[in-house]
């Protein structure tokens, strides 16, 4: 897909007789904004190391080839009971595959809600394309004061042999003093396809959210996800990402801490092999006073795969007493693998506490010898070390069953990769 291909699709698919005037107008504006920006190139700072050539494999016309049937949906189970499932299947939200709504949770499929005035803030090419071609999405509301113990899971699943480009959008409003867990589970398993998704989370006063993203798409997918989180006073946002899928997986994360005393903690593990690439592009913006943020991202890159960490913390003028920490650690398992790490801080006031760091290295040969001298074979010793590299992040997951599940997934990944 190049810009002309997108123009073709816009001309063919986005017409005023399908949408209301308001929606059509928003889509048109979004597309015009996209055309001004164009598709990112390697000359863009935040896309310098991202290989977008894989987009060339996709052709116009496959956009919105949403299949109407929910037949063939194969749930990728997580061993957690009582999930509240919201399922996107082959590009569309499927009510019939989703759970009944518990008390305190409501959802809407209305495009008016999905494309509210906030769309005007979309300023990246892919989120603008999402606004343009969005056909199906959901807005989830958690009532104020609601403490939801059952985790919400949003599943993105596609199957079949036809390539597609899908544009899911999820808006989650965590209202005042509400608290919940959101799992986003990417399990697409299709011919070369592209998921260009947008997730927008709005955290009202004193609300808290535990967000877990699990990206396990098949290795021929492109998955570019744009996540925006807006935080009001005293809200608390935690996200953990586990990504080992897709040919190209890119997580664009933008956290805006408007409210005083809000805090956010971002962490993630990216595991790549073959020619995969997983990028994390993160902006954490401190606007309110007394806000706290932390980032710990780790990548393990093997074979010819690569990864990018672009992390930026922006501390605005009024954001006094900010406490921000940022760390990126990477483990390189092969001479042909590569990692680009670029932690940055932009600080516009001097009443702050900040720390950032980045390290990239290979397996510690001393530790390997130590373990082998105790009788562990080379593969076993390597596996223990690699597991040890990410263990602190998985251990931090408070939900015991999700933690155990992710350890299993990690061990599977490890066993597949380190037989030799």
């Amino acid at each position: 897909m190049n810009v002309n291909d997108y123009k073709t699709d816009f001309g063919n698919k986005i017409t005023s007789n399908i949408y209301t005037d308001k929606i059509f107008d928003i889509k048109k504006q979004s597309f015009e904004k996209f055309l001004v920006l164009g598709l990112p190139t390697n000359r863009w700072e935040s896309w310098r190391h991202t290989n977008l050539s894989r987009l060339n494999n996709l052709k116009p016309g496959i956009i919105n080839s949403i299949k109407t049937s929910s037949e063939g949906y194969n749930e990728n189970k997580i061993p957690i009971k009582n999930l509240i499932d919201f399922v996107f299947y082959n590009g569309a939200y499927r009510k019939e595959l989703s759970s009944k709504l518990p008390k305190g949770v409501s959802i809407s499929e209305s495009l008016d809600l999905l494309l509210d005035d906030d769309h005007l803030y979309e300023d990246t090419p892919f989120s603008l394309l999402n606004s343009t071609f969005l056909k199906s999405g959901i807005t989830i509301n958690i009532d104020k004061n609601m403490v939801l113990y059952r985790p919400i899971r949003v599943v993105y699943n596609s199957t079949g042999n036809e390539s597609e480009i899908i544009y899911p959008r999820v808006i989650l409003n965590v209202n005042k003093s509400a608290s919940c867990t959101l799992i986003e589970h990417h399990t697409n398993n299709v011919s070369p396809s592209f998921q260009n998704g947008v997730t927008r989370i709005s955290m009202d006063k004193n609300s808290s959210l535990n967000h877990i993203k699990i990206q396990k798409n098949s290795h021929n997918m492109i998955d570019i996800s744009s996540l925006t989180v807006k935080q009001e006073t005293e809200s608390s946002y935690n996200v953990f990402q586990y990504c080992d899928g897709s040919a190209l997986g890119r997580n664009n994360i933008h956290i805006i801490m408007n409210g005083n005393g809000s805090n956010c903690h971002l962490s993630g593990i990216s595991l790549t092999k073959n020619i995969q690439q997983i990028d994390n592009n993160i902006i954490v913006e401190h606007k309110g006073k007394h806000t706290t943020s932390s980032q710990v991202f780790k990548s393990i890159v093997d074979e010819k795969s690569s990864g990018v960490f672009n992390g930026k913390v922006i501390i605005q003028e009024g954001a006094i007493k900010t406490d921000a920490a940022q760390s990126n650690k990477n483990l390189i398992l092969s001479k042909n693998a590569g990692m680009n790490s670029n932690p940055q801080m932009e600080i516009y006031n001097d009443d702050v506490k900040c720390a950032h760091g980045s390290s990239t290295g290979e397996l510690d040969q001393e530790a390997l010898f130590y373990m082998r001298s105790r009788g562990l074979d080379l593969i076993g010793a390597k596996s223990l070390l690699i597991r040890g590299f990410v263990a602190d992040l998985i251990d931090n997951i408070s939900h015991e069953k999700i933690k155990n599940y992710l350890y299993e997934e990690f061990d599977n990944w490890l066993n597949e990769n380190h037989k030799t």
Partner: protein
Amino acid sequence: MLQIKNLHVKVQNKKILKGINLHIKNGEMHAIMGLNGSGKSTLSNTITGRENYTVASGDILYNNESILDWSPENRALAGIFMSFQYPTVIPGVNTTYFLRAAVNAKRKHNNQKEYDAANFLKFIKNKLEQVKMDTKYLKRSVNDGFSGGEKKRNEILQLLCLEPDLAIMDETDSGLDIDAIKIIANGINNYRNDDRGFLVITHYQRLLKYINPDIVHVLIDGQIVKSGGKELALELEEKGYGWLEK
């Protein structure tokens, strides 16, 4: 048990060991003393098979078989153990998990049933008591945040768990206070029997106050220049190494 024959070893093309001969029989404890840089650690690292220690000539026989081509893990499984001078910190790897993996590797090798988590805790309990270690250490990453003394006790704990036939103690006493040395020496003495061999490498005579080697060797510039009984260690303490240098 261990026979070292005219061993020459290079590290990064520099000759470190220049013709070592050593024969440790079952039940014997040998001590090697020498100044820094004399080649003591090179000898222990070569026996345990560390990379980049190149044997230029000579041989190391263990139970009459040459082990030069064996991997470090195969040497360990055959019963050779080294207590490290500087035990490695392994962040993220839980101590219990690591010890159990090591013990189970050995049990598997010996066709014994591997320990599950519960059985392993039973197995290790009295060993922890012997080296005066609390179970809280087991929950931490291997040697991570351990003091010098704790690291060395962890080495002795591993010795007790893995039950090697040949134990090489590389500067196990360095950096320890007297109380810690006593705990370490006690661990070694309890472990000693008529079948097991020991090679104790040390800089000072301190540790030898608490354990009784059968033979003491003096290593200078990659060669054993003098061997004798325990009294040789006392003589070195008194006179230093100067009188033995060429």
